[in-house]
C-alpha cells in the first residue's frame, strides 16, 4: 500500500485523516499515485493538478524521503521506500499568503 499525506484543507475535502493508503500499480510514480488518489477521492480532482494540463498547481509541492520531487517528471519512479509503503508521499501546500 502506498501512503499519501495531504494538506489539511484537502483532508477536510476528502474527509480523511492525516494519511491515506492507496493501491497503486508499479512502477509507482507521481502520476500513478495522483491517478489512484483522484479515482478513490473524486472530489480531489483538480485540486492538486490542473484538470486539463495535469500540471501540478503552482502553490503545491511533492516531497518524498526528505527530498523535493516537485520538479521531477510525473512518470519518474519514486524511491523504493515510497513504493514499499515504508515512507509516505507528501503533498505540501506552499507557505504563501500570510
Amino acid at each position, binding site marked *: 500500500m502506498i501512503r499519501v499525506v495531504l*494538506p489539511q*484543507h*484537502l483532508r477536510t*475535502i476528502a474527509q480523511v485523516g492525516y494519511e491515506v493508503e492507496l493501491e497503486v500499480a508499479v512502477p509507482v510514480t507521481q502520476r*500513478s499515485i495522483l*491517478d*489512484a488518489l*483522484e*479515482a478513490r477521492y*473524486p*472530489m480531489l*480532482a*483538480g*485540486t*492538486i493538478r*490542473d*484538470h*486539463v494540463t495535469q500540471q501540478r*498547481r503552482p*502553490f*503545491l509541492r511533492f516531497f518524498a524521503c526528505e527530498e523535493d520531487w516537485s520538479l521531477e517528471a510525473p512518470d519518474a519512479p519514486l524511491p523504493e521506500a515510497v513504493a514499499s509503503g515504508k515512507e509516505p508521499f507528501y503533498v505540501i*501546500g*506552499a507557505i*504563501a*499568503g500570510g
Partner: protein
Amino acid sequence: MSKVRVLVGTRKGAFILNADGKRDKWEVSGPHFAGWEIYHLKGSPVDPNRIYASQTSGWFGQLIQVSNDGGKSWGIPGGSITPVPGAMPKVESNKFVYDTTSPNGKPLTTHQWYDGTQHPWEFKRVWHLEPSYTEADTVYAGVEDAALFRSTDGSKSWQELPGLRGHGTGPKWQPGAGGMCLHTVILDKKDPKRIYIAISAAGAFRTDDGGKTWKPINQGLRSQYIPDPKAEVGHCVHHVAMHPSRPNTLFMQKHWDVMRSDDAGDNWKEVSGNLPTDFGFVIDVHAHEPETIYVVPIKSDSEHYPPEGKLRVYRSRSGGNEWEALTKGLPQSNCFVNVLRDAMAVDSLDKCGVYFGTTGGQVYASTDAGDSWSAIVRDLPAVYSVEVQTLP
C-alpha cells in the same frame, strides 16, 4: 411564521444566518469551508434546501459544494468517473473546461490583457452561481476568465455555453481590477430562454435562445476609461438587477454611473441623479416595489470606501434619478469599508428586508425597506456575497 436564511460568502469561509419572520434574533452558523474563499452561495428556488456554494483557493483551485438540507451539511457531488481502457478513470468533479470541441464549441481565443496585448483564456474561479427557476439540478456558473457554464446534474459535471465567449467580441474584453469575471447571471422567470449576464470589463449581454447566441446590450453606456467611450463592448459593468415581475427593466451599477433600461438592455439611460458619487458595486430592487432600488455609493475607483467615511445606502422610489440617503443605524463617521457587487440582497417579507455585507465583516439588515438598519454580525471576514432566502 415565515423564516429568513441569509447566505454569506466571505474571504475565509461561508456563514449562514437564520431568523424567524420578525428578523430580530439571528442564529449564526459557520464558518463552513473554513479558510477558503467563498465567492458566492445561492439556494434553489425549486428546492430551497438545495444550496450551491463556490469554494475557491489559490492553492487548490475551484470546488462546488452542495447542501441538500439548508446548509447543515455539505458535499461535493461525486461526479462521473469515466472508465478509460488501459488507464486510470477520468474524473469529472469540479471540472470547468472551456468548450473547444467540434461542432458546438468555440476555439480558445484570446482577450485583451491589462497592457493591451492579447491573452489566452484561463479558468480561475467561479464568481456567481445562479440556480434554475424550474430544475433543482440545473445551475449556471459565471466564471473568471469570463464564460458561462451550466450543470444539469446538480454540479456533478459542467458544460460551457460557448456561444457567449465565442460570439465575436471576446478579443475586446479585458480584465477589471478583480479579474475578467462573469459576475452577474439573471434568469427570466417568464421566459426560460432569456438570460442576462454581465462581465467586468466587457459589459452586459443577453441571449434569447437559451444560451446558443448572445448579443452585447451596452447601447447608451458611456465609459471614459476606454478609447471609444460608447464602444459596443469594454464597459466595466459592476452589477445588474431586475425585478422578476418586470423582466424588461434592468438596473445597472456601472464602474461609474447608475443606469436603467426598459427594453431588456437594448438601450440604457443614466439615472444617477443626485447621488453623492455614482461609483459603486451593488444595486438591488425592492421585493414588492419594482421602482424602488438601492445602491451604496463608493467614493471613487481608486478609493473604495464610502464618501466622507459615512456608510449610506441610497434608495430611489422612482426607479432612479431621485435618491434619498438611508443612514439610521449605519456608521456615520470613520467608516472605510466597501460593499462588493454580490453583497446585497432582499427578502420577500412585508415589509421588505434589505441586507448587505461589507469588507469589514459586518452584515447589516433592514426590516423596514431601508428606513433603519442594524448589524446581524459585525466581525466576519471580508464579505464577498450575500443572498437571502425567504422560507415558509
